[in-house]
């Protein structure tokens, strides 16, 4: 039998990389038991914590990259351990010290983000091309709202409709908004969770300076990942501006009576809470409120909703990595939506959009199950 000894130096590098919370873990295993991976395969979160405590982490293991940072574990941890911080610390050790291997797919995306500011390797100057024919203003000091769609809705041909829907709604309602110049870069939330701290710092400082130079006060975002980092991480680096998720903004317009729906949508719609809007930031009601305001629309719920919602699998850099069929959380959700008799799966996150789109396509459900962002549904019904 192989005998191991604790290796303090390894623990120390993890602690230095931000893994401090691991000290609190008392190994009850609740994290493992609530982790969505264990619905499809074995992933022992608790063991990762214990390995880090003793410095016996296997940095070469694919387990380093498995966590989708959905926060289901942190939410219920009896010791309040910020498990995601520990996972991130282990990844930082791999990415920055070169111990262990960064998976290929992630390495390419990371390189693209570091190089051209988006994971696709697309030209930075094309960032605002999605809005070309919509007559959207460029943001100038004094404009009320900066709309920041981030990378996926800016570049992905399928997801562009999300950003375009937002612009359409804003144009129709006469919202004073603009797009920031193409010097903008990815918000950096996911690449930070994937352990690439330097890249994140560069992206964040670039965006913070750009926003500050343009006197940006309020940013409306489409991605919960932008929402999270702008709201919770940028302020520490000096980025001080109000951040509103598009669902919050639209819900407030409904409250104020500015957004009214003229069309009826006789559909059964099931809403999937994005982890970074729900568990990470406690936004559960606004998306539902919008959907319930659309005439004719019947809102239904997944068996696990709100705090217990199942992750799509796209957080923590997983969106750039391949997940084998049979292990995709979004596949489970699509099945549940079919079982519930939904016509449309409504989303509020571009990563969810990509994963659910792939799921309905690969499962052959594209004919009967639509995958739509809430902004698209609003644009259609307004």
């Amino acid at each position, binding site marked *: 039998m192989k005998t191991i000894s604790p290796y303090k130096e390894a623990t120390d590098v993890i602690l230095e990389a931000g893994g401090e919370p691991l000290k609190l873990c008392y*190994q009850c*295993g*609740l994290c493992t*038991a609530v982790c969505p991976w*264990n619905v499809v395969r074995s992933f022992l979160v608790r063991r990762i914590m214990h390995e880090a405590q003793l410095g016996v982490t296997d940095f070469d293991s694919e387990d380093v990259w498995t966590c989708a940072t959905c926060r289901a574990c942190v939410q219920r941890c009896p010791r309040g351990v910020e498990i995601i911080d520990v996972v991130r610390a282990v990844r930082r050790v791999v990415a920055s010290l070169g111990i262990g291997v960064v998976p290929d797919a992630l390495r390419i995306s990371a390189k693209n983000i570091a190089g051209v500011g988006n994971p696709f390797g697309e030209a930075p100057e094309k960032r605002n091309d999605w809005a070309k024919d919509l007559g959207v203003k460029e943001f100038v000091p004094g404009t009320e709202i900066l709309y920041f769609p981030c990378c996926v809705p800016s570049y992905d041909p399928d997801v562009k409709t999300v950003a375009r829907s937002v612009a359409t709604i804003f144009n129709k309602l006469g919202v004073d908004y603009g797009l920031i110049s193409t010097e903008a870069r990815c918000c950096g939330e996911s690449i930070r969770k994937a352990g690439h701290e330097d890249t994140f710092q560069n992206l964040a400082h670039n965006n913070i300076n750009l926003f500050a130079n343009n006197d940006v006060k309020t940013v409306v975002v489409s991605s919960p990942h932008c929402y999270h980092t702008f709201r919770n991480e940028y302020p520490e680096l000096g980025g001080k501006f109000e951040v509103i998720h598009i669902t919050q903004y639209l819900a407030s317009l409904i409250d104020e009576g500015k957004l009214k729906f003229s069309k009826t949508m006789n559909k059964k719609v099931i809403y999937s809470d994005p982890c970074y809007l729900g568990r990470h930031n406690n936004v559960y009601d606004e998306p539902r409120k919008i959907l319930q305001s659309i005439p004719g629309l019947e809102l239904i719920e997944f*068996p696990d909703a709100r705090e217990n919602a199942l992750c799509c699998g796209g957080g923590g850099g997983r969106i750039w990595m391949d997940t084998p069929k049979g292990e995709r959380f979004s596949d489970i959700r699509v099945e549940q939506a079919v079982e519930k008799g939904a016509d449309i799966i409504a989303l509020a996150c571009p990563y969810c959009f990509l994963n659910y789109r792939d799921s309905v396509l690969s499962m052959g459900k594209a004919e009967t199950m639509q995958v739509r962002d809430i902004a698209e549904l609003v644009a259609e019904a307004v």
Partner: protein
Amino acid sequence: MEEVKIGVYVCWCGLNIAGTVDSEEVARYAGTLPHVAVARDYKYMCSDPGQDLIKNDIKRLGINRVVVASCSPRLHEPTFRKACRDAGLNPYLYEHANIREHCSWPHATDKNRATEKAKDLVRAAVRRVYYQEPLEIKEVPVNPNVLVVGGGIAGIQAALDIADGEKKVYMVERDASIGGHMIQLDRTFPTLDCSECILTPKMTDTGHHPNIELMTNSEVEEVSGYIGNFNVRIRKKPRYVDVDKCNSCGECAKVCPVEVPDEFEMGLSMRKAAYLPLPQAVPAAFAIDKRGTAPCRIACPAGVNAQGYIALISQGKFKEALELVRRAMPFAGVLGRVCTHPCELECERGKFDEPVSIRALKRFIADYELKTEREKVVPIETTKDSKVAVIGSGPAGLACAYDLIREGYAVTVFESLPRAGGLLRYGIPEYRLPKEVLDNDISYIQELGVEIKTKSPVEDLAEVFNQGYAAIFIASGAQGSQKMGIPGEETSGVIHALDFLRMVNAGVDIKLGNKVVVVGGGNAAIDAARASLRLGAREVTVVYRRSRDEMPAISSEVEEAEHEGIKIHFLATPTKILSRDGQLSAIECITMKLGEPDASGRRRPVAVKGTEFTMNVDNVIIAIGQTVDKTALPKELNYTSWGTLEVDPVTLQTHIAGVFAGGDVVSGPADVVVAVAAGKEAAISIDRYLRGVSLTEERQVTPKRVENVSKERAQLKARASTPLLKLDERKGSFAEVELSFDEKTAIEEAKRCLNCGVCSECLECVKVCEQGAINHEMQDEFVEVEVGSMILATGYQQFDPSVIPQYGYKKFDNVLTGLEFERITCAGGPTQGRIQLKDGREPESVAIVHCVGSRDQNYHEYCSRVCCMYGLKYAELIKEFTKAEVYEFYIDMRCFGEAFEEFYKRVSEMGVNFIRGKVANITDRVMGEEERGKLIVTAEDTLLGKMIRVPVDMVILCAALEARSDAADVASLFTIGQRGDGFFLETHPKLAPVNTPTDGVFIAGCCEAPRDVPDTVAQASAAASKALSLISRGKVTTEAAVSYVDESICHGCGRCEEICTFHAPSIIRTDGRLVSSINEALCKGCGACAVVCPTGAAQIKHFNMQEIEGLVDGLLEVHRG
């Protein structure tokens, strides 16, 4: 003043201080300071040789001030003060410098600076001690009585220990019996002896002990005083049963109609409102559970006990129910039909689904009497000399007569019409109120002895007095009709509703044309319209000037009218009545719209110009209001500007002494029940008037409305509606439209009642109690006791696991808490000790989940200490009594007590499965046929490193023990502290575990922290010994460093009085001047008064300005630039 000679003593504390601070150097430095006569250092100052150094210096060198620089004054200030005193020096001529916690420990890495800081502190102490003055230490005697709060095992043990020591104990327990949580437990780990068997003897001893005065249903309201001399005010809540008389026969519970969940059985079974709190209750007496007055009863103007009669109906006790209605008023049959039932609007059931059909239930019991024929009533004996005259035999007059005759007065009712009943008889049509019903209610009143003289109008009040009546109640109603004031109103064929209804009810043959228009929106309008239809009118239209929402008529009546084919024209009012050849031909109306709300709160109708229209009619019935007909009233009276009689609004007395008035004649037209209420008020006034007592004093008793009515157990059930006469049977007939419930429906409907007040005060228990032990009139009592010390043993509450939704508690039947399972295994419990599922089956598998709400920062971070062991106990019992597999889900097994580990081993040997992992979810999401009906428990088996799902039949959640939700209130009442987790804070966790910061207040048991029975008993005995030790000492010294007031500069502003939480200062008048005076016995020397005093008059001895300034100067002097 003698020369100040200061001795300074610097301690090494071994290496604790000297390892960092150069104690020798500090002592040498101290020797250089002014007035210091001697300075020494020593390895352990607190040791006997160390203390001897001080004592010898005082004696030999004449040292008269002492400074010790050592560790914390919390620990050793008392030590060195005592050394001073032993050597004959006043202990307040002593100052302490803390050079351990303040120097050596925090500055361990910088020896030089630590030493310099120590010098600073010593210098400051030297400067301060120079100014100190001797203070007088007083002693006060200790009251030998002890208060024990809480009657669980901790309180019981403490009380018995003290009482056995021949000292008096007052035990205050909030519940109706002592016993606490322990008496709910089935067996106690690890010996498995039966909790009842070991606790019951102690409970009985407590109840019977000559030195224990037990107060159950009681709470401490107020505490004042100080150690040795506390005054405690206790509220004894009514039990409604005299514990000395009750022989626990249980007859009261048998007849009690109200069932509520039994708290003792954790809600697993039901008990009655009259109940024995637990089988071994001490005191061994029943109690009656009243939570307040039901909202229906409060809403009833006549004060009818609706909850009571509904409860009796639910038990099939229809006669008794009617008897209860008649305790309040005589009109069960009448009001069961025509009441506007304000009770139903307030009914709590309405917040859940629909209100109970209260009115229809009352009608049911009245009808039941008619159907079964009531026995003749025994007349009431006249016991009072005075006679009372009532003018008018409507609801107000008869209600008043009814109440007065039952008080023993002779009452005569004068009625001008040929029959009694007033508007009940002549205003309401028979299809709504059949005459036999009215006759039954009135004859009941007559049979009691009320004399009704019909055809006897009263014109002169003086004459009534002359006939020997001592008081008069005028209730002649509002029988005049309001006029519309429009052209054509006098045309033949136009009739006023009251006249019309009077003729209809008197059986006068009335010829109506085909088309009838009724003007108005009240009950009279609807009555007139429906009566017209019955008299043969083909087309009846009601014209009302506002909309449906504002219509004052009973909405169900309006609906029925419409069913019968009556049209209602809303938002219109007549402007002109047209005639052709002197004969009524048409009515012209104008359309209205609703404007701003008027005085009645309803929106005022406004005419819309140019919207006049006409309707052809044969008859117009005007029902727009009734007025008081002054011509029919005695002349001597005064009227208001509204034309109603003027009376005192509270007493209903007119300007003539002994003459009262009420009902419509005072209020204008109103509901029958309001008139009944007025009659009852008048009866109270007349009785007071005739007895010669104040009409107003203590008259308004507002009942306490019950709060937070539980709807947890209610199940959706629609309200029963009364059957109605078929439409085609109504034409041309005055047969009653609304019909009665059958018995089954009535009982079912009555069972929908939520029993808001719990006890319904139906008083059935009083009837059956042979001991005469029950008294529903009992009130709160206040008791003041004097004690020298107090022991708080208020216990814990069980964490409510329903806040962890993933565990499915309250969602799944077979997910239980520990205390619920205790009741299930208990032989005296709801299942007679049989371990079974909700459906009665024996479980095949059980999961026991540890740490539910404990060791979890989302709920309680602490370990509840007892769960591992009681979890093992459950496993043992399940294994012993069933064939079930048992799975213990634990994180760490904590089996640290005597014989605990051995018990763990024994349970392991029985084949219990132990799974190390915190349970994530308990769901009913089964996979496959064999899991059907099971609960699925999931966790990571952390020892296997695998996810595990266990299908089981039953889950027991080992719920945390938590501080009681009102612990903060209790803590503030007794001026003690709480930890962050809510439990009471002890003075020192190791060395003073039962003391609190308030001297003389001790704590024991789970109010201090979760603990098991043995530890609780030990702690309770410890608290008792603390109290006994205090009593044995017999006296206590009071704090000498208390506040004082320099009266010469005090302005008597009172700020000190305001700020002080101990009520020590009070403003008094001395030599014509207001000044503050300090009660030294209450003062804790906190200094709050000195801080707020604007003149510096209030100061604290031992901390006066000079001393504090000396200290600060000493600290700063070498550092000043």
